[in-house]
């Protein structure tokens, strides 16, 4: 048997979990780019270092986003990945596919690229891994012909994403799929033509379980919530108890606000104390239903560590009704982006700008009232700013 070119990667073919090396080898059989990608990766495994250079500016006509330029630093060894650019393809909201759409995507990519993909990348896009500069425009044209478009990259609005929401989930307080799709279609220009100080991410989760991690991973987080009483079906509660769920221990004792009581017979909820964490509903979905008035909490500022440290999004609108065409929501997004665009420094995310200038300044600029839901606690230091009009100017 011939000696393998990739002895280190070969060791990752075995084992029970599906192997990405098998996928690379499958693509390498018919595509020289995929083969050189695999051989370059083997070199990285040997040398413990990456072999990609910074991307140059490459793209398709009329767009400034959607293509990530990538070049090998060893084109002498791997000429077929000398240029190996990524195309980010905006996924159908909720990552729902019919197979004919997926097959079209595969055909386009076999024609123009390496035959390797990520389903999906971190922003949610379908990632087409690796093509040459001269294929970018024709690949984009064929993608358009198949009904697909590119997603965001660089200092643009990144491809918005949403949880499965009303597509499958009984806990959806908002139509996360429709909100996300509507925002995506309304803001195509902001996705394709980077014009901001830095990236801007929007993610939509339909309940506080936050299945798309909007609070951690987006500058603008939309999280479904409700007002009003959780309705209780006592018969179903009893059925859960009979099936072995320890309602006192597993439900009431773990309720963060201790707003529930269970006497072995009847479950009571003091809704005014409830902070809508979802724990009891997660455990007894047949018995408990969220309050009838549905809407969303809007939070902003979430991001990963670079530059000033990681932030979790914080509340700016405790409750907003979300019904098509979502004008109030989109108007708020535009006001926030305008302010950030005006005052943000290069590569300063929205959350960092607010940290630098203060919530007080932000709230006044975008026209939102300060409410106690915005903070865990009021400030403890006495370094308080006042507005000029709050000060008596002439001392009598």
């Amino acid at each position: 048997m011939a000696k393998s070119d990739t002895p280190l990667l070969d060791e990752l073919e075995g084992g029970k979990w599906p192997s990405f090396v098998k996928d690379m080898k499958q693509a390498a059989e018919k595509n020289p780019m995929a083969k050189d990608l695999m051989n370059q990766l083997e070199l990285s495994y040997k040398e413990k270092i990456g072999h990609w250079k910074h991307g140059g500016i490459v793209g398709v006509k009329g767009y400034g986003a959607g293509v990530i330029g990538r070049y090998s630093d060893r084109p002498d060894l791997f000429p077929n990945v000398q240029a190996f650019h990524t195309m980010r393809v905006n996924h159908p909201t909720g990552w729902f596919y019919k197979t004919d759409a997926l097959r079209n995507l595969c055909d386009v990519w076999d024609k123009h690229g390496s035959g390797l993909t990520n389903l999906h990348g971190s922003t949610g896009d379908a990632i087409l891994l690796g093509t040459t500069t001269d294929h970018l425009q024709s690949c984009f044209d064929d993608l358009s012909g198949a009904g697909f478009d590119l997603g965001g990259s660089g200092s643009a609005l990144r491809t918005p994403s949403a949880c499965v929401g009303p597509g499958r989930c009984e806990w959806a307080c908002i139509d996360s799929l429709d909100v996300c799709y509507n925002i995506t279609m309304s803001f195509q220009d902001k996705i394709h033509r980077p014009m901001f100080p830095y990236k801007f991410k929007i993610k939509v989760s339909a309940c506080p379980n936050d299945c798309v991690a909007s609070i951690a991973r987006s500058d603008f987080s939309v999280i479904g919530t409700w007002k009003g009483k959780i309705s209780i079906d006592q018969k179903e509660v009893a059925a859960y108890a009979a099936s072995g769920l320890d309602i006192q221990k597993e439900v009431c004792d773990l309720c963060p606000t201790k707003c529930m009581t269970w006497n072995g017979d009847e479950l009571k909820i003091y809704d005014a104390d409830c902070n809508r964490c979802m724990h009891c509903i997660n455990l007894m979905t047949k018995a408990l239903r969220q309050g009838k008035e549905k809407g969303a909490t809007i939070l902003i500022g979430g991001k990963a560590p670079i530059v000033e440290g990681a932030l979790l999004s914080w509340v700016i609108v405790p409750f907003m009704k979300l019904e098509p065409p979502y004008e109030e929501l989109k108007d708020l997004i535009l006001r926030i982006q305008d302010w950030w665009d005006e005052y943000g420094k290069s590569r300063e995310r929205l959350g960092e700008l607010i940290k630098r200038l203060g919530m007080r300044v932000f709230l006044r600029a975008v026209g939102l009232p300060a409410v106690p839901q915005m903070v865990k606690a009021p400030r403890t230091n006495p370094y308080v700013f006042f507005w000029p009009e709050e000060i008596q100017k002439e001392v009598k």
Partner: protein
Amino acid sequence: MATDIGPPDYKTMLPPVIQRNYGKWRYHEILKPGVLLHVAESGEALYTVRAGSPRLLSTDHIREICDIAEKYCEGYLRFTSRNNIEFLLDNKESIEPLLAELDGRNYPVGGTGHSISNIVHTQGWVHCHTPATDASGPVKALMDEIYDYFVTMKLPAHIRIALACCLNMCGAVHCSDIAILGIHRTVPKPDNSRVPNLCEIPSTVASCPTGAIRGDMKNKTVTVNEDKCMYCGNCYTVCPAMPIADPDNDGISIWVGGKVSNARSAPTFSKLAIPFLPNNPPRWPEVVDAVKNIIEVYASHARKHERVGEWIERVGWERFFNLTGIPFTDKHIDDFTMATETFRSSTLFKWG
């Protein structure tokens, strides 16, 4: 050719049973690991079979997934935010044959309930220019070892694991039960012959979170203060002429106790458990062993429904280090901007 057409309308991708019951779901059950039943108010049922994937997929592999979806679910499927494949069926009779086919083709079925779902991860050496480690490799090596937790639901609560190959965290791992994070440990080296042509000095200086970079206007380059640099690599993102990768010193750190959901406790960041483990391709044994140890200690000590971070908060970090045998070092004590908030300003601690 028209541009800005946006993604295909998701409504055209929904199976008929979802179109009929959109927004009118009543409840769901996990029938067994990897198999979900959702029942609508109409009484109609939707079955979901969830299978793991390596995320990095060849077009032929995608076509195979399409073949399976066409055979058992009229071509309707979706992907989850953790890169799992979900086959969507309205016919209960198709579940067992689908499971048998998936089993025959070695697709793991699971990732539901109190399990470890697929690991969210970044590109690593496969396609990124700033990585401190690979992504697909450590994920594959780890999932092989913890496979059993994917196909069962025997943990106290679910564990979300994520891997990012550098501090840019395009995988945003910072709120995971267990985060695996590639780190550099040596300062970037400005290449004075290339900096003047490739880099903008003011933006390179501004890119440093600790003010370690100074402009050298005379030579049109920058200098790095080694005492202030904590190797985040942000300057390299801005200025390609100051490479930071170092095969002998790059590696992996492990973080624990983060969560995103609001259930019970507030969303929270992961905290440092292990500052450094070496890059040892192809199977990263030190990383795999360390993560497995944390999972096993958690599994044997946490109460039902307690996430990793909730368990640690209850027993205390001093006990976490004691139980896991992970050494506590000066690196665990924060020294960035908000450090003092994490210092213990009380006498309320345990002996371990």
